[in-house]
């Protein structure tokens, strides 16, 4: 087990470094610097600015400094756009918000998705099954950027139940719509996955054996069927996490929740490279860590995996 984790780490760390170097190179290759404004600055001012942000040094030195600061001090440097804020400030401001609704979306997607899938599999070919399958097929074509306007249309404009945006320190009525918008399509995928693997497991011989020796259905499902049936679902959690982080950009833009996505898109539109890079690297690191955790959990619950 330990050697497996070590081996996985040996892949994860270079991946992260490649991501950092790659995004730095793209940023360096970008035409136009962060201080190219409509009014050209005097050359002395330009030189001073470049010196202050260390942009006058050779590429390799700049890159080393950047990587060193990120890895050792966890410092992503200053923002080029908001002069009084560092990238760390921006992340500290937006990240807790993203994390809050991201966490709840994840919980909702997993709990609802699995329950739907399991119910559908147990009551295979009944109206419950068709209902669950119908919901999950419908939800599949409703990605977050489609769900968000529909939700606002129904719950804010027509029914007037929920506020159309804002965060207000995370009160529940501000969290509901972002969570629904973000979790719908993953809930659908998880439900489909759970259903098909649960069906497969329920037809296996050892389940019939368990039933034949007189165990009640509930016990068979929860003790014998659930664990092997959830394996494919566990391996889907990694990609789901990535997509959820990505989806948070839409949620932040549309519901003005003030999460990290707003800063990402605004700095993308304003060419504020240090913020874009900081957020890209942070999400990359989170993704890689999460995938690692999922792989370890998978290896732990699946006895068939050799590591």
């Amino acid at each position, binding site marked *: 087990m330990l050697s497996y984790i070590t081996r996985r780490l040996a892949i994860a760390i270079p991946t992260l470094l490649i991501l950092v170097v790659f995004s730095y190179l*793209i940023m360096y290759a970008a035409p136009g610097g962060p201080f190219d404004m409509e009014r050209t600055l005097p050359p002395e001012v330009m030189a001073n600015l470049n010196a202050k942000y260390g942009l006058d040094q050779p590429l390799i030195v700049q890159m080393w400094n950047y990587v060193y600061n990120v890895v050792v001090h966890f410092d992503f440097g200053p923002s080029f756009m908001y002069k009084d804020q560092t990238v760390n400030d921006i992340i500290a401001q937006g990240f807790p918000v993203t994390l809050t609704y991201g966490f709840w979306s994840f919980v909702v997607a997993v709990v609802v998705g699995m329950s739907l899938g399991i119910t559908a599999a147990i009551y295979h070919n009944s109206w419950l099954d068709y209902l669950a399958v119908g919901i999950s*097929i419908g939800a599949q074509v409703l*990605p977050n*950027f489609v769900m968000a306007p529909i939700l606002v*249309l129904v719950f804010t404009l027509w029914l007037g139940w929920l506020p159309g945006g804002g965060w207000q320190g995370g009160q529940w009525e501000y969290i509901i719509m972002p969570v629904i918008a973000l979790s719908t399509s993953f809930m659908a995928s998880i439900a489909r996955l759970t259903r098909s693997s649960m069906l497969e497991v329920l037809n296996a011989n050892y389940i019939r054996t368990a039933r034949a020796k007189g165990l009640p259905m509930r016990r068979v499902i929860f003790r014998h069927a659930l664990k092997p049936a959830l394996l494919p679902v566990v391996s889907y959690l990694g990609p789901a996490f990535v997509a959820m982080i*990505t989806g948070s950009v839409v949620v932040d833009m549309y519901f003005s929740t003030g999460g990290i996505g707003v800063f990402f898109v605004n700095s993308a539109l304003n060419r504020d490279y240090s913020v874009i890079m900081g957020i890209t690297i942070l999400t*990359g690191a989170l993704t*890689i860590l999460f995938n690692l955790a999922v792989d370890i959990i998978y290896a732990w619950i699946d006895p068939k995996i050799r590591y």
Partner: protein
Amino acid sequence: MILSRKTAKDLETAQIGAEIEGRSLWADARIRFFRNRAAVGGMVILILVGLFAAFGQYIAPWSNEEVDWAVLGNVDTMGRPSIASGHYFGTDELGRDLFARTIQGTQISLMVGLIGALIAVFVGTIYGATAGYYGGRVDNVMMRIVDVLLAIPYMFVLILLLVVFGRSVLMLFVGIGLISWLDMARIARGQTLSIKNKEFVEAAHAIGVRPGTIIRRHIVPNLLGVVIVYATLLVPSMIIYESFISFLGLGVQEPATSWGALISEGAKQMQYGTLWMLLFPLFFFVITLFAFFFVGDGLRDALDPKDR
């Protein structure tokens, strides 16, 4: 197995008649596909959407760039969908005809989806087949690269690329092409591993066919079934990626448009009661995705009967 009376009769007449016509595996698959009602329905919808994208501009009374000055300023009353004014889907907030804009958006969205899937088919299949066929260290290195690329949050990198090299449709294609082939490569590799030990590959190897030719002539054609199924399922996800980026305003730029951009515009205008701006593009987006998923599922059932 008990034959029904009709089948038995059919068999009799078939044997009395001329030679039984042989059916290839593809013909079998076609029959299975056309028996699947959802898949056929999906295909009909796709054909209709395709026709709409290809020929819609010839029946649109307004062009996509023309501004209807009579409407501008009070779009919420004058810009409603109506047959009389020629704006079948209404107008957008600038008084441009939404019917023509939707056609334009459909063209771009479909193109992004198809090109992304095509790149995935070409690059992914060849990459995966090569890795799988050679095996050993080559396979290890090639698949590690795929693993590393898959672990990167591509959407952020894609946005980074779009920002740095300018937001254009071409860059969008490049960016989407860069990521779309990864899963395909994995699938193709897995299939190759099971094919490469079959006798016909061994035979080809024995008579001295070069590896490149074996991959091209013997492996890739046998991958096609799986590749086609996955490509059909890839098109909608490419469309979703593109729409996602365009929704954020980082993808296709004005005056060009796509479903994502149209949905985004419609969503911004929603509170003024001009719902048609949201609902028409949304309708096309949703039915097309539905259709692709159904066709993909149908193809999977048709080409891979053991999976049912």
